[in-house]
């Protein structure tokens, strides 16, 4: 873990581990620069680590699932606490929707294995899901334009 943080810091600062800043003498010294993504490759490095962690043997380990379960419980607790913050007003609705979407995606991706599984399943499921959301939005718009009790 310490090595990972040092690596990220080094990449972020463009610093080599031998105590010198990496300054190329000529353009040819860096023919295929590894760190040409935003934030000097930190994002890419983190994503690579994440992909490696979540794609181990095609499935997560029991410990990994336990961590996901703790994250889900924590999000539910946050939702419960935010519900009693009265100063939020109308902001409560988008915050709650984002939090529930996070839980939805976490369960579908990891517990239902869509992240590890064939892409066909993702397409089939989200075809139905997106259709349901679109129909719901259209229905709400129709009734918002012409209320039933006018």
């Amino acid at each position, binding site marked *: 873990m310490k090595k990972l943080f040092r690596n990220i810091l080094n990449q972020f600062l463009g610093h080599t581990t031998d105590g010198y800043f990496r300054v190329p003498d000529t353009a040819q010294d860096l023919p295929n620069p590894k760190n040409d993504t935003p934030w000097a490759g930190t994002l890419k490095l983190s994503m690579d680590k994440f992909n490696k962690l979540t794609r181990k043997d095609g*499935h*997560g*380990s*029991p410990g990994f*699932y*336990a961590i*996901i*379960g703790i994250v*889900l*419980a924590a999000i*539910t607790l946050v*939702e*419960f606490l935010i*519900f009693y913050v009265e100063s939020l007003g109308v902001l*409560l*609705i988008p915050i*709650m*929707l984002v*939090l*529930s979407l996070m*839980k*939805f995606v976490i*369960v*579908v991706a*990891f*517990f*239902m*294995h869509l992240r590890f599984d*064939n892409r*066909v*399943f993702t397409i*089939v*499921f*989200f*075809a*139905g*899901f997106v*259709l*349901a*959301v679109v*129909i*719901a939005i259209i*229905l*709400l718009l129709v*009734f918002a334009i012409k209320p*039933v*009790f006018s």
Partner: protein
Amino acid sequence: MSTVSEEHVNSTGVDNKKLMMWIFLGSDCLFFGSFISTYLVYRNRSLSGPYPNEILDIPLTTVSTFVLLMSSLAMVLAVSYVQRGSQVIGRYWTLATALLGLVFMGFQVYEFSHFAHLGLTPRTNIFGSTFFTMTGFHGGHVTFGVIWLVIFAISRLAETLKQKMLIVGSVLSVVIAMTGLMMTHTLDVIPHIPSIVAYSVFGVGLLGTIGTLFLLKSSDNQNIESIKKEEGNLELAGLYWHFVDIVWIVIFTVVYLISANDGAPLL
């Protein structure tokens, strides 16, 4: 009795059963999507009470949501352990999932009866109609899932008759313990039950649960081959169970957290 390796070669390159389950879940999204959007369309349109802000109990429903989330965790652990060849642990987690599903149903039964006492039924107002239809169908899905998991644990994950009987015994013991627990809480309401009877029923159920689970563990035959055959079928049950969980995640947000402060409509 089929795993991916025994399936016929097909053009999709994936397990047919699993694809069928995902197609079903996609269509079930539309099923519940229609209920949730109907609820939202008729939100704040009840002409008489009780209104959501008078009866919805957020702390209680947060606990039941937590229980259902943990049942999802138990389910994924059951599938994970069976795929790793741990028969007895997979069987325990499957039973734990069914048990947590039962607890969630207990919460829902309590909530429905409590609402009925407060005067909210499907006939009372448009909130009652949409609320009971949506949560009722979700409860039906949970009940079906619990039955599926218990039958699976008995008929597929257990090989010998002794194991099957022990699983039936453990589920019955849990139900007896829950009944005893409920009786201890209703002693002031139903004075005809002596308290010693209520606590005895709870104790018998608890001892039965611990005893049957212990015997189940000691009767393990570690036949990994037989259990490996069932991992695909258990995964299907798992997909269904997780879907029931994500539907509740949406219902909890839309009906409880967002609509809990709704009162009489502003006409």
